[in-house]
Every structure is written in structure tokens, then in C-alpha cells.
């Protein structure tokens, strides 16, 4: 597809000449580089609660962000009005970051290479609302049917379609259509007079509605959510102290996201504020550990045909057999550090400045049999499901919340334990990985990553992993 046939050209009548004009305005006071990011986002969300479809919402937001780089300085302005005069005004405001004679921009644009990592059969706009309603109804029924102790079910289905266009002063133009869909189920279960317990499951990705009919059904997520709540009914107090921990495959990869991923974002590293700063080529994990960030995976939540600066995404090896190989770059940090772009420049919306972010971050499979890993632990904790996590990239300390775990006693999973926070230090914890399973799995597609007030969708993954020594924050001694 050529630019003239693209969404913004056809819907808003934007021409290449217009883009050149606004970029020239952005560089009217000097500045080394400017770009425009156009976004059009249509969302739909349907929720069921107490078996009543209580809420149905749709909406559209759109706008353009103008960025000007002058050395290490960034000027940014945006407009939610796509009229030429408002865009020109935003460009003039962003231009003020520079102080000098105006620059001329390259004439004509080169169309960026295009990919199709997430073809969607039924665009959300063509999907009857009733079809979405049937998904949340099915989830509600399946969760209630799972066990009579389930007494509360909430399910939400949300889909979005985002159209983006990036045009740069160095003559590149690229655009993309980015679908996203997600179904979540929250369940409460109760037995007798004991306090209720909760379960939460969900998933999706850059997929169409068909995904929930053919691959992961509402019943699948509903039963998983109900199962978690029922398991917790028998949970005992979590242990306190340093323990050997085995992570289940899949979503527990959130450990890598916190312990490794954020600390490898290039903005922190060029400023020298990360625990991983100036450590490329050094050992930062055990030799069993290879960590990859891959934005090019088919239909995954963290995948992108191009990043939010118009660069193609890549499969980037961050840690190879325990040795730090590189950082996650965006344009600004890459230029300052003299590194090639890795396709990790992302932003929440046109109202936000791009920065280095993860896409899908995971550890490659090892050779151990997962059952063998559990058998090898005399006393420990098996973490099956996590809530979220957080990291202080400067000290390297991170936490993550284990919401479903089991005691390991004499190599066997025994009792479920109550939720507990685990805390460790990134480089230290990754050196303590002593076994890596052959069962790499990616999460179901529910990750949201926050940084500097900006949220973006991400994916994580990990095989079964044994960590020798991490602090578990329970209450039982």
C-alpha cells in the first residue's frame, strides 16, 4: 500500500506536501530532527457483572504529536484537532526547543518497509455488538458452572483498532494498523464462613474476534479464573525468608521484565542510572540464561510491525548465555550512544514522547525436564501465577507478586499458599538461576507495562526455572 491509499491520507486528506510543510515548521528554529506521529484510536468495551450486561462503551480519540530533537533536547507538542492550522501551531510550539536558523528538510519521502504481523479477518468496526456480548455471557456462565462455591463473576471484553502514521524530517514515512483484543474474567469463591478468595485470568493479543472462538475461548479463561479462586480456598500462610523458588512457564516471565528488561532500557543506561549501566560484555546472569526481546512475533500483545518512531521492530538478544549483549534503543538514545535502532521506541499515545520500551521479553528454553526441576528441590516454593511487579532500576531491586503458589516438600508440590511478594536484586537473582526447563511458554496476552506515567501493552515468557535463593514475603516461619 502506498501512502496516498493509507488511512490518514484517505480519511483526513493529508498529503505528503502537508507533512513536509509541518516538518519544516517544526525545524523552523533549527533542531536536528523532527517527526510527526498521527494516531486514530477506536475502542469498544463490554462488561458483565452479576450476569447483567451493565456497561457498553465505544469511543474515538485522535491526534498528532510533533517532536523536535536538538542535540539531547526534546521539544514536544500535540493537538487533538487534525486541522492544518492546529498541526502547524503544535509544530511551532515544539520548534521552540531549538534556538537557531531554520533547517530545510529533505524533499520527498521514502516509504518504510511494511510487514503484516497481525492480519485481522474481522476488523472491530465490522463486528456486530451482539457478538461481543455473547463472549462475556459465555464467560459468566462458564465461571459459574465451574463450581458452586463461585459467587461473583465479572467479565470484560475490550477491543481497539489503532491507525498510526509516522513521518520524519529525514524523509521516512511509515504507517500501520494495530488491532488489540482482550477478554478478562474475575471470580470470587467462598466456602462457609471463611473469607472469599479471588481468581483472575484473561488473554488476547493483536488478534481479531475469531481468536476467542477458535483458539482461546471465553470458557477457557473463565475456568482458569475460577480454578485459581477455588485453589486459594485451601491456601495456608506463605513462608517467610530466603527460599529456593521454581517459576512455572509463561506469565511468571514477568520476573525477567522487572529483573532484567527495564534495567536494559537505553535511556537509563546512557545516563548511567541503571544497575546494568556500562556492563555490556560482562556476566550479569548464570550461563543458562539467554533473554530475548522480540517485537516481531505473530499476533502477540507486545508485537509491532513498526515501533512508534516508524522503525521496524527486531528480535534483540539482551543476555546471551549470561553475558549482557545490548540495550533496548529508541532514536534519541541510539543516536547519543552510537547504536543502531532496535525498534523499541514506543509511546502510549500521540500525547506522549517516545522512549525505549520492551515488546515481548522472554528467556529461551534450556534442557531440563520441568518435572525434574521440581523433584530437585527439597524445600521451596513453586510459583504458578503472578500479579504484577515493580523495579528500582538504580539499585536493581525488584518485586513481583505471586498470587498462586505451592509449597515444594521433598520434590513434590504439596499445599497452596496465600499470595506473597517476592523481592530480589536483578543481576544477583539472575546469577542464581540453576536450572532452565525445555518448556518455554509465553503469557496469554494481558501484560501492561508502566514507565514514567506511560502504559503500553507487552508480552512476557519463561520456561520452568529454578532460582536458588530469593526472599519470599509471607508470614509463616
Amino acid at each position, binding site marked *: 500500500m502506498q501512502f496516498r491509499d493509507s488511512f490518514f491520507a484517505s480519511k483526513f486528506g493529508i498529503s505528503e506536501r502537508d507533512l513536509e510543510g509541518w516538518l519544516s515548521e517544526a525545524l523552523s528554529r533549527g533542531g536536528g530532527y523532527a517527526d510527526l506521529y498521527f494516531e486514530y484510536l477506536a475502542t469498544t468495551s*463490554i462488561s458483565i*457483572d452479576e450476569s*447483567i*450486561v*451493565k*456497561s*457498553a*462503551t*465505544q*469511543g*474515538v*480519540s485522535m491526534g498528532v504529536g510533533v517532536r523536535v530533537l536538538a542535540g*539531547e*533536547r*526534546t*521539544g*514536544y*507538542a*500535540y*493537538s*487533538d484537532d487534525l486541522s492544518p492550522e492546529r498541526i502547524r501551531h503544535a509544530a511551532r*510550539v515544539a520548534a*521552540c526547543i531549538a534556538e537557531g536558523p531554520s533547517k530545510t528538510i529533505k524533499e520527498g519521502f521514502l516509504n518504510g518497509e511494511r510487514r503484516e504481523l497481525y492480519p485481522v479477518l474481522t476488523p472491530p468496526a465490522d463486528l456486530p*455488538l451482539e457478538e461481543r456480548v455473547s463472549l462475556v455471557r459465555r464467560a459468566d456462565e462458564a465461571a459459574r458452572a465451574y463450581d458452586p462455591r463461585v459467587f*461473583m463473576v465479572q467479565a470484560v471484553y475490550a477491543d481497539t483498532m489503532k491507525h498510526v502514521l509516522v513521518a520524519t524530517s529525514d524523509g521516512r514515512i511509515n504507517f500501520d494498523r494495530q488491532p488489540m483484543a482482550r477478554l478478562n474474567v474475575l471470580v*470470587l469463591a*467462598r466456602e462457609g464462613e471463611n*473469607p*472469599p*478468595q*479471588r481468581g483472575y485470568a484473561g488473554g488476547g493479543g493483536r488478534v481479531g474476534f475469531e481468536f476467542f472462538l477458535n483458539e482461546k475461548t471465553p470458557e477457557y479463561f473463565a475456568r482458569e479464573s475460577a480454578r485459581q479462586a477455588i485453589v486459594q480456598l485451601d491456601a495456608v500462610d*506463605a513462608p*517467610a*525468608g*530466603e527460599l529456593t523458588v521454581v517459576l512455572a512457564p509463561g506469565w511468571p516471565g514477568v520476573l525477567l521484565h522487572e529483573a532484567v528488561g527495564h534495567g536494559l532500557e537505553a535511556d537509563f543506561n546512557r545516563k*548511567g*542510572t541503571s544497575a546494568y549501566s556500562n556492563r555490556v560484555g560482562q556476566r550479569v546472569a548464570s550461563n543458562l540464561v539467554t533473554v530475548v526481546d522480540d517485537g516481531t512475533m505473530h499476533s502477540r500483545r507486545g508485537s509491532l510491525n513498526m515501533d512508534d518512531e516508524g522503525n521496524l521492530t527486531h528480535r534483540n538478544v539482551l543476555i546471551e548465555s549470561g553475558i549482557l549483549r545490548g540495550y533496548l534503543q529508541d532514536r534519541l538514545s541510539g543516536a547519543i550512544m552510537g547504536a543502531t535502532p532496535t525498534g523499541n521506541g514506543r509511546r502510549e499515545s500521540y500525547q506522549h*514522547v517516545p522512549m525505549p520500551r520492551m515488546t515481548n521479553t522472554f528467556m529461551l528454553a534450556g534442557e531440563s525436564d520441568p518435572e525434574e526441576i521440581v523433584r530437585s528441590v527439597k524445600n521451596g516454593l513453586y510459583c504458578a501465577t503472578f*500479579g504484577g*511487579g*515493580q523495579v528500582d532500576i*538504580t*539499585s536493581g531491586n525488584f*518485586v*513481583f*507478586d505471586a498470587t498462586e503458589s505451592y509449597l515444594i516438600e521433598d520434590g513434590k508440590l504439596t499445599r497452596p499458599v*496465600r*499470595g*506473597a*511478594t*517476592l*523481592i*530480589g*536484586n536483578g543481576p544477583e537473582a539472575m546469577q542464581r538461576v540453576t536450572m532452565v526447563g525445555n518448556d518455554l511458554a509465553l503469557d496469554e496476552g494481558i501484560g501492561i507495562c508502566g514507565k514514567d506515567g506511560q502504559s503500553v501493552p507487552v508480552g512476557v515468557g519463561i520456561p520452568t526455572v529454578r532460582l536458588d535463593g530469593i*526472599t*519470599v*514475603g*509471607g*508470614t509463616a*516461619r
Partner: protein
Amino acid sequence: MNWHEGPHLERLAGRVVSLAREAGATDSECTISEGSEFSATVRMGEVEQVKEAGSRGAGVRVLFGQRTGSSYTSDLTDDGLRAMVSQAVNLARITTEDPFAGLPEAADFGAVSHALDLYHGDVEALDAASKVEMARLAEKAALTLDPRVSNSEGGSFGSYLGASAFANSRGFLGSYRASNCSLSVVPVVKDGDAMERDYWYSTARSAAGLEAPELIGRRAAERALRRLNARSLSTRKAPVIFEPRVARSLLSHVFELLHGESVYRRASIWAGKLGERVAGNEVTIIDDSTMPGLFGSSPFDDEGVTSRRNVLIDRGVLKSYLLNTYTARKLGLRSTGSASRGLTGNAGIGHGNLYLASGALKPEELLRRMGTGLFVTELMGHGFNAVTGDYSRGAAGLWIENGEIAYPVSKVTIAGNLKEMLNQVAAIGDDLEFRGSVAAPTVAIGEMTISGQ
């Protein structure tokens, strides 16, 4: 963009309500807001980023009997508003009759009569150069305090000016505008291989209300420095004191427990506990949306119900939940004026100025009385479960021996159950101050499990 457009926004909101009526809606409500933001970051003495922009948006909720639909748009042209209304009308077709859905009772509509002092012209009057200069001065104060302050994530100034209007089909129409600004610094300190960062900040509705940049920079650097060369602890039970910055998180948990939706779904340990003792005698928690000049204040809530002061916990006894019209009806109670919504969807629940009332003791006196224990200055993670009260979070702080600071601590967790934590609150400091809409003084929690090496 022009910031004095209250009447203009009210006209647009009223227009949306009449479009909904024309489309056959039994009832409707509309929120319209606009705002402008400015932010500047200075890092290592150099301007790093300046951002400036304005935006606006509208949201509508329509009712057809007791079915609802809602939608939003950033297109405030008449065509844009019409498209939004017809989308919401279309969505109402597919929702289910909900016997509790509906607008508030007419008697509940209204606005606080005294001046709330939410808007100050000095924020708008401040030029970009002065804002950048404040960020620069704050960072400089941090960088020059001590040679170990060797790096920084920068000093930042941010300001926001906004206006919003609300109208509904029962005749409510109101609008207000507000301003705020903030100044913060994130220094990074280094000693050998140890590296730590911390932050300090000030926020105010007026530029004149901000703390001096030098003070903010110095506090931030002092906080980062005192974290250097922290140790873990052996796993143990010990008394714990929360400094105000982290004690606020306890109120966020209390908010979850009092949240009307959690209460009617029985997803809160406090469901069905009105009138019962849920905390120690020392504990009084108030939510007040009517305090002049503060961040949680507004003349009316997001359903047009008059803002008020709600005593939630009075000397340990549970007195009130936080309710919007819907959850109040579900529970057979009255709205507490706590409806909160973005542009769209059904009204949720929010809080105004939510705070733990001050006690009588100086914070140093709390430490002295504790003798030996953990003074928590940072919490990490989200380890609180409102359904069970289970509490487990990452922590850092200072180990206290004989009432004096012994050494910094990090990489530990603290765990317990919020029910017991609140019941054991031993004493509360006299140092309540508002740096946002949630505030707490220093709190002595009593014993918790500290997990470490």
C-alpha cells in the same frame, strides 16, 4: 486555547443532553472537559525536555429505561457530538435492564456553596523560562549537596490548567476550572559500587504555594543519601513505623475496602461491617471533598451530587462506605457524593481529600517509643488483597535501635493482614500534610513479619 470557557463547555454539555433526548433517551448525562499541560525537565543542568499542549473531550451516558450505553469523542464539532450520541444510543440496545441503574435523586443535586479556591491565575501567568528555571534550581540544590550526588534523572516542573462541565437530563448544569503545578527532583547517589536514587516533590494549586526549589532538591538528595549501603535483615517479627509518604498507601488500601462496588460484591473484608470496630482507637479516617485549595476538592461529584465531608472511620469504628448513586441503591444507602468518572462509562467511585487524622506525638517520639524496629520509607509492588486483607510488600527504610537510626535497610518484605495492622495501630504522628489528595501522618503499625535473608 482559552481557559475561561466554563459557559462555553456548559453550552456544549447541555447540547449533548438535548441531542440524547431527541434520540429518545429517557435520561442522559454528559461530561466535557478541556485542559492544557506543560512540563519541563532539566537534567545535569541542561534542558532535556519541554512539552506543551492542550486537549479536550466529551463523554455521554444515555439511559433507555434501565439500560445504559455510553461513548466519548475528542471531536467537539456538532457532527462529532451527534455521532457520539448515536453511538451511545446504539450501545444501549445491547445492554441488560439493571433495576438499580439511573440518575441521582433530585434532592442530591447541588454544589458546595463556599469558594473552593481550585484555580489560581499565577500558574497560567508563569512563563516557560521561569518554570524551567525552577526545575534547574531544584536539581542544582540536589547535585551540590554532597559529592556522592553524582548523577540525576532530572528536576521537573509540571503544570495543568483544566475546566470541566457536567449536565444531565434532570436539569443539573455546572462547571468549574482548576489549576495545579508540581516540582520534583530525582537525584542518583553513588558510593563505591552502591547506587541509589530517591525523589522529593511539592504540588500546589498555585505557583506561590510550591515549596522552594532549593528545599525540594535538598530533601531529595538527603533521602537518596541515607539509602546508601543498605543491608537486608534476617527474617523476624518486629514493630514497623510508616513515614507519611508510605503511610498514604494504607489509605489507598482503605479506599479499596470502602469502595461501594467491592462492598456490594462482598469483595471487601469490610462488607457488612458498618458500625463495627475495624481499627484501633487512634484511627480516624475522613474523606472531605470540600476543603479549599486541596487536590481532592470539587463543588460536586461526577454525577452532579453535592460534595461533602464523610467520616469513614471514627476512632476505630466503621461509619461510612464511599458510594455513588448506583452502589448506594444496591446497598440501600445514600450516595456519599463519591461518583467519579472519566469521559465515559458508568460512574465509578473516587475519593476527595482522603486522610488519616493527626495524632498528638512528634514523629521522633514515635521512633523513641518503638525503640527497636523498622522505619519504612519506601514500599514496592501491589501485594494487598482487599478480599482477604492479606498484605505483603517489598520495603526499604531505616533500622531503628533505641529510637535512633542504626543503618539503612533494603530488599526485605513486610507482611501481615491489614485487619490486624489497623487494629494494632499503636500511635499516630502530628505531621499530617497534603501533597496530593491522599494524606497521612507518620503511623506506628505494631509488629509485622519482616522477611529477608
